[in-house]
C-alpha cells in the first residue's frame, strides 16, 4: 500500500503539479493567440515576443519597486507590478496595430500578409526586449519559495516521497482561474464582449448592426496584451525569463490553440493542458515510479523515458500534426481550416 501511495506522490510531484502550472501558462498564452485569431483572423507570430515584452515590463517595474522597498509580503513583488506592465504592454501592442496592422485591415489584405507583418512586429519587439534587458536569463522571483516543502510533506504523511508545491505554481493556477473567469464573464455578459463575439462570428452582420469595429479591435488587442503579459510573467516566475525561450514557446502555444480549435477560447484552455500533460508525461523518466510498483527484485535497466527532455518541443509538434491529420478543426470546433 505504501508503495502505491509513494508512487502516486512521486507522480504528483514530478508530473501533475508541474504540468498543471505549465498547462495554465500555455492556456493563457493560447487564449491570447486564439482571441486574436478569432477576431482579427490571423495567427499572431508576435505573441511569444509580446509575452517577453510584457514580462520585461513586469521585471523592470519589480526592480523599481524592490529598490523603493515595496514588497508583497510572502507573494512575489511581480504581482504588484503586473497591472502596470499590462498597461505598458497594451500601449506597445496598440501602437503596433495603429502603425502596422490597421493599414492591412483597411485594405482587407490576405491573412498571410498579416502573418508576415506579425513576423516583422515580432522582430521589433524582440529587438526592443534584447536592447533594453539583454538576451540573458533574469530571475525576478522573491517572497516565499514554497507553499509546501517536500520535507514537510514527508513528515506529515510518513511517506518516503514528498510533494512540493512552489508559490509560483500556486499563483499560476489561481491567476489562471481568475483570469479565465473574468474573460468569460466579459465575453458573455458585457456589451463589448458580446459585440466582440458577434464580430468574430460574422463581421459584416456585426457592422450592419452598428458595432464599432475600431473599438472591437482595440479591446481585442488590450485583452491579448494582458493575457500575454500575465502568461509571460507567470512563466518567468515559475522558470526564468530569457527572451529566446519566449520565442520558442510559440510552438507549444500555437499547438495548444490549434489542438483546442483556433478561435475557440475554451479549446485554448483545454489545448494548453493537453500539450503540457503530454509534454511532461512523455519526457518523464519512469524508473523510480516503476520501482515502487514492480516486485522487489525487478530492476529497470534504463530511465524508462519515452523521449529525452531535449525533444519536448517534438511532443507539441507531433500532437499538432496528429490533430491536423485527424481533426483539423481541433477538439472543440474552432473556426479553423
Amino acid at each position, binding site marked *: 500500500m505504501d508503495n502505491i501511495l509513494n508512487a502516486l506522490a512521486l507522480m504528483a510531484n514530478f508530473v501533475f503539479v508541474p504540468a498543471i502550472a505549465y498547462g495554465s501558462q500555455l492556456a493563457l498564452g493560447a487564449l491570447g493567440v486564439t482571441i486574436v*485569431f478569432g477576431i482579427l483572423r*490571423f*495567427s499572431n*507570430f508576435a505573441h511569444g515576443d509580446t509575452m517577453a515584452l510584457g514580462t520585461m515590463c513586469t521585471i523592470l517595474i519589480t526592480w523599481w519597486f524592490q529598490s523603493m522597498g515595496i514588497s508583497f509580503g510572502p507573494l512575489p513583488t511581480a504581482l504588484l507590478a503586473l497591472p502596470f506592465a499590462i498597461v505598458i504592454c497594451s500601449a506597445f501592442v496598440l501602437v503596433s496595430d495603429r502603425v*502596422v496592422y490597421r*493599414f492591412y485591415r483597411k485594405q482587407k489584405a490576405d*491573412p*498571410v*500578409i498579416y*502573418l*508576415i*507583418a506579425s*513576423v*516583422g*512586429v*515580432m*522582430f*521589433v519587439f*524582440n*529587438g*526592443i526586449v*534584447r*536592447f*533594453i534587458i*539583454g*538576451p540573458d536569463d533574469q530571475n525576478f522571483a522573491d517572497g516565499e519559495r514554497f507553499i509546501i516543502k517536500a520535507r514537510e510533506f514527508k513528515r506529515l504523511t510518513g511517506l518516503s516521497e514528498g510533494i512540493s508545491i512552489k508559490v509560483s505554481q500556486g499563483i499560476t493556477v489561481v491567476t489562471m482561474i481568475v483570469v479565465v473567469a473574468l474573460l468569460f464573464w466579459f465575453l458573455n455578459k458585457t456589451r463589448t464582449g458580446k459585440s466582440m463575439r458577434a464580430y468574430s462570428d460574422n463581421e459584416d452582420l456585426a457592422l450592419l448592426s452598428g458595432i464599432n469595429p475600431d473599438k472591437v479591435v482595440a479591446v481585442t488587442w488590450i485583452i491579448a496584451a494582458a493575457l500575454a503579459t500575465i502568461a509571460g510573467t507567470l512563466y518567468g516566475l515559475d522558470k526564468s525569463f530569457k527572451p529566446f525561450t519566449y*520565442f*520558442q514557446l*510559440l*510552438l507549444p502555444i*500555437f*499547438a495548444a490553440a*490549434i489542438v483546442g480549435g*483556433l478561435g475557440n477560447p475554451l479549446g485554448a484552455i483545454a489545448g494548453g493542458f493537453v500539450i503540457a500533460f503530454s509534454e511532461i508525461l512523455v519526457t518523464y523518466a519512469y524508473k523510480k515510479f516503476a520501482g515502487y510498483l514492480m516486485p522487489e527484485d525487478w530492476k529497470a535497466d*534504463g530511465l524508462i523515458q*519515452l523521449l*529525452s527532455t*531535449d*525533444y519536448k*518541443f*517534438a511532443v*507539441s*509538434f507531433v500532437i*499538432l*500534426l496528429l490533430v*491536423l*491529420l*485527424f481533426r*483539423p478543426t481541433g477538439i472543440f470546433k474552432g473556426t*479553423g*481550416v
Partner: protein
Amino acid sequence: MFNRNVLYFAIMLGLIVLVGQTQSWNVALTITNLCIISAVMALGVNIQWGYAGLFNVGIMGFAAMGGLAAMIISVSPVQEAWSAGGVGVLVSLVLAAITIVAAVFTYRALEGKSFRLLALFIVVLAGSWAVRAFLDPATAAIEKVNPASTGYLGGLGLPIILAWPVGGIFAGAAAWVVGKITLGLRADYLAIATLGISEIIVAVLKHEDWLTRGVKNVTGLPRPVPYEVDLQQTQWFLDLCAQLGANPVTFSSIFVKLCYMVLFASVLLIILWFSEKALRSPWGRMMRAIRDNEVSASAMGKNIKSRHLQVFVLGSIVVGIAGAMLTTLDGQLTPSTYQPLRFTFLIWVMVIVGGSGNNWGAVLGGFVIWFFWIEAEPLGLWLMELITSGMAEDSALRAHLIESAAHMRLMTMGIILLLALRFSPRGLIPERN
C-alpha cells in the same frame, strides 16, 4: 524597367568593390560568397512564396538538413564506431521504416472500425519500443568510441560537392512529410508546422551525438577547393603570384575564396536558369493561377494540394542545396549556429525586399540584405558611438547602449521587413505580369 534592374545589380557590385577597396578584398569576397548562398536560399523561398504563396517559417530546418548532408557525405567513416554500433543503428532504421509502413497499413485497413486509433497507437508504441531497444545500446556504444575526437559514426568519405544535391534531397524529404500533412489546410497551419519541424531538426542535430557529435561540432570537413597552405607550396601558384606582384599568403586566401565563388555562382546560375524556365513555362503560369485564385484554378481541374506539395518540396530542395553549400564554405557543422533569426526570418526579408515572384528580385534581395546584415554591425556600433559621444566615458548608460548595438540588427531587420511590406510590397524588382 530593365535598366533600373541592371542599375540595382551595378550598385550592389559597386558596394562590394567599395568594401574591397576600403576594408579588404578578403572581406569583400567572404561577403560575396555568403551573398551568393543567401541568394540561392532566397530563390528557394521565392519558389514557395512567390510562385505559390506558401508561407514557410522553417527555412532554418531545411538549411540544416543540407548541412547534415554535407557532413555525412564528406567526413570519412569511423570504423571502430561502425563496428561498435553500426549494425544496431541500421537495424533500428529498418525497424523504424517497418513501423511507419505498418502504421499506415493499419490506419488504411481499419477504415471505419471503432478501434482504429487504438490499434494505430499500439503499432506505433510497439514500433518505437523496438527501435529504442536497438538504437539506445548502439548509440551508447558509438558515443563511447573516443568521445574527444570522434564518438560518432562519421560519414561516407565522398567528395563534398556530392553533398549539395544530397542536401537538397534530405530537405525535400522533410518538406514532403510536412507538406503532405499540412497543405490543403489553412496557410497558418503550414507556417506553424514548418516552424515546428525546423526546431525539431535542429534539436536532433544538437542532441544526437552519434550522428552529428551534437554541440561538440564536426570540424575540418574536406574542401572542394585547394588549401591555402598547399597553394603556397605549389610552383604554378607562386609563379602566378610573382606575375601579379602579390603576396602569396594573402593571395592564396583570396584565390581559395575565388574558387568557392566560381562553384557557388555556377550553382546559383543553374538554379536561376531553371527557375526562370519554370516560371515562364505552362507549369509556372498554372502555379500563379493557383496562387491568385485557388477556386477558379480548382474549377479548371487543377489539383491544388498536389501542386502545392510539389512546389513546396522543390523550394525546400533549393534551400537544402544552399544549406549544404553554406556548411561546405564553413568547413564545419555547428548545430548551435542554426538560429531562426539568421536562417529563417532573414531569408524572408530578402525575398520580400527583393521582390516576391521574381527570381532576379530574390537574388538581388539575397545580395542586398546579406550585405547590410554584415555591414550593419560596424555601422550600428559607429552610430551608437556617435550618439553616446556626448556622455561621460564611464557612464553606465553609454556602456549599455554600445553593448546593445548588436541587438539593433534585429530591430532594423524587423523595420525593414515592415516598411518593405507596406510601402513596396512588390519589392525592388517586381513580378512581371
